[in-house]
Structures are given as C-alpha cells and as structure tokens.
C-alpha cells in the first residue's frame, strides 16, 4: 500500500464517526489477546527473498529429460577419457617425431653431409618414423572422434589454430611418407640427395607445425 493510501485511510478515520468511549479503568469488550509466539516462529532470513518470477514447478519425473541428461553425462565422460588419451598420445608422438628428425638429420649428414655413408642411422630413423606416424594418426582419430556434448561454434581462436596447424603437420607426414621410400629407391643417384634434402625439410616442417599446434592450445 502506498504512503498516500495509508495517509488517506488515516484521515478518513479522523472524520468518521467514532465508537463510544471506553470508560476509564475498563477494557474494550472486543479486545483480542496478543498472539503468543510459537516455537516454530523464526526470525526472517535476510537472504530469504526472490525478486524474479516464481519458477515453474517441474514434473516429479520426466523420462525424456532424464534420458537426455544420462546421454549427456555419458558423452561428457567419454569425451574426457578420449581427450586424455589424445593429450598423452599427442605428447608421446611429438617426442617420437623429434627423435625421428634427429635420426633423419644424422642419416642425411652421414650420407650427403660429409659423413662416411655408413647408413647406421637409416633403420632407426625408419622405425621411429613409423612409430611417430602411427602415433600421429591415432592421436588425430581420437581428437576427431571425441563426442561433443556441448556444441562448439567455429571461431578464430587457439582451438582453431591447433586444428589448422595439426592439419599442416598431417600434410607434411603424408608428403614424407611418399618422399621417404622414393628417396630410398634412388640409392646411388644424384637425385637421391635432392629428394633426401626435401624429405628432411618437410620433416622439419611437420615438427614445427606440430609444436606450434601444441603450444597454441597450451599457452593461449
């Protein structure tokens, strides 16, 4: 009730006919006793208020909503598990790729950089490169196949940078998967040196792209 309304009521009460005076020393007949506080009465909590519209009362059990919530929860758990493997395998692959590059560079120097052409790094380089390629492929599949319970719009952010740079690394992997055997097949020719040089360059490209893709997601 506004203060104007209360004031008006009081003023009306002033001019309205009054009841008979209560005799001195006597109590009005209709005087009601004051209410006695009960044990259940509690002081009003300062924060016991709601300024928004009352919320709609949801049904006791909604099977459709419950099924959706269960599905969402399962997808979230799966995604976390898959992405944990993605991160672990990704780090291991990065290490394997770095080792591949070291062995590959040693192999190139051994054959074309003034070394003794012993070929002692070739087998190790091939073996580790196969491990790195398998690791990269598996990591990529895990990342792409992880469920997305909460939709993600495509935006120019570090998550997109991670995907683009890993795409560049993947292209380098594919190129080197082709160049490596071709280069090996040209044993004893001048062409082999050029092909091997390109192979090393693309290898460094894959390592740089994969490292940048990892850092984009971790640091930013």
């Amino acid at each position, binding site marked *: 009730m506004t203060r104007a309304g209360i004031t008006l009521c009081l003023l009306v009460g002033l001019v309205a006919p009054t009841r008979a005076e209560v005799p001195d020393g006597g109590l009005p007949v209709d005087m009601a006793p004051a209410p006695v506080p009960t044990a259940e009465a509690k002081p009003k909590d300062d*924060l016991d208020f709601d*300024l928004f519209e009352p919320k709609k009362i949801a049904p006791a059990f909604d099977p459709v909503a419950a099924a959706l919530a269960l599905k969402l929860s399962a997808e979230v758990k799966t995604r976390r598990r898959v992405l944990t493997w993605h991160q672990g395998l990704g780090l291991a692959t990065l290490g394997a790729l770095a080792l591949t590059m070291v062995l590959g560079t040693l192999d190139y120097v051994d054959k074309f950089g003034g070394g003794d052409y012993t070929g002692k790094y070739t087998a190790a380089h091939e073996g580790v490169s196969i491990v790195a390629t398998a690791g990269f492929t598996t990591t990529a599949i895990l990342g792409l196949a992880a469920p997305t319970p909460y939709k993600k719009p495509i935006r120019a952010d570090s998550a997109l940078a991670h995907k683009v740079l890993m795409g560049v690394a993947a292209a380098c992997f594919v190129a080197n998967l082709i160049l490596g055997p071709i280069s090996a097949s040209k044993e004893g020719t001048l062409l082999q040196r050029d092909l091997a040089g390109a192979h090393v360059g693309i290898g460094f490209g894959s390592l740089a792209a994969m490292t940048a893709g990892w850092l984009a997601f971790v640091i930013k």
Partner: protein
Amino acid sequence: MSFIRMIVVAVALLLTSSAFADPTQLKVVTAKSTASYHLVHKMHKVDATSKKVDGKAILTDGKAQVMIRIPVDSFDSDNVNRDAHMKETVEAATYPTIELKAVGPAATPASFPSTVKSTFKVQLVFHGVKQLFDAPVEITWTSATEVSATTSFKISLDGYKVERPSLMFIKVDDELVLDAKLLFTP
C-alpha cells in the same frame, strides 16, 4: 479521543515524509552489465566474460536487496574448446544458472554523483551448491534511481564440488575470481 486524533495526525504527517518512502525497484541493464571469472593454470590464465547478466534490486530504508542470475553457458573466454570444457565440468545442462543474492547498506546519498564502498552479505548458488559469505561492493550513485555496482570475490571450485578441469594433466588452481560490473535503472 482528541488525543487519539492528534496521534493519527502526527502519523499521517510522518508518513508524508521521505523517511518512509516507497521501495525503489531497479533492474539490471543487461547491455551495460558484465560478469567475469578468472582462473589460473600453470601454463596460462583463463578469463571469461558473460554479457547476459539479469537481475533486480529493491532499495528500501537505506538497504538494498539484490538478486542476479547469469546463464552458465554465456561465459566466453575466446576459446570454444575451453568454454565447452567449462560447461562439462560445471554440468551446465543440470545447473544452467549462477544465482546470487545480496543484502547490504545502500542509503541514497545527499548529492550525485557519489561513490560508496560497503560490504554485502552474499549467497551464491553455483553447481547446485549454496554458500554464504561477505563481499566488498562499490556503489556509484549517478542519480537516485541510476546506480552502478562493482564487486569482486574469490570462491573455491572444490567448495562448490566442481571437478577442476585440467590441461596437459595439470589441473587449474582451486581459486576462481568472480567479478561483476552492474548497472541498475528503474
């Protein structure tokens, strides 16, 4: 009876004074209000902002009652993966809003503009957990009915039963700083 009439007149005169003014109802101007959270990870910091703050306030007898609601999925950290991960950890589908209630002193100043710092009693409901604490609030009165409020406080993710997200097998720090800049108008 004439004495009773005098009492009634005195009360009527008192009611016309500003000491018993009607409560002032204000609401948050969403377009000019923001709420942000700040998290620290060993490798980077996460700052996310929501521009979908909804709220109301009632000013009465020099006191303010405030209620704010923020959709959990409205926080934007400029990284879609990070935001999706946040929604997973706070179970945004089950607990879609952060709800904040606050009471504290907010007496209308004698002149404008005026800035007052005070402490409000706050109840925060987040991830289905309710906690009470005190928070500092800076209130700037542009006029009797246009008020902006700024607050910042820290909460514990473990305290709200939030499983702390991790990156590279390292979890974020437990402390989350939440701050809000709100504009209230009728």
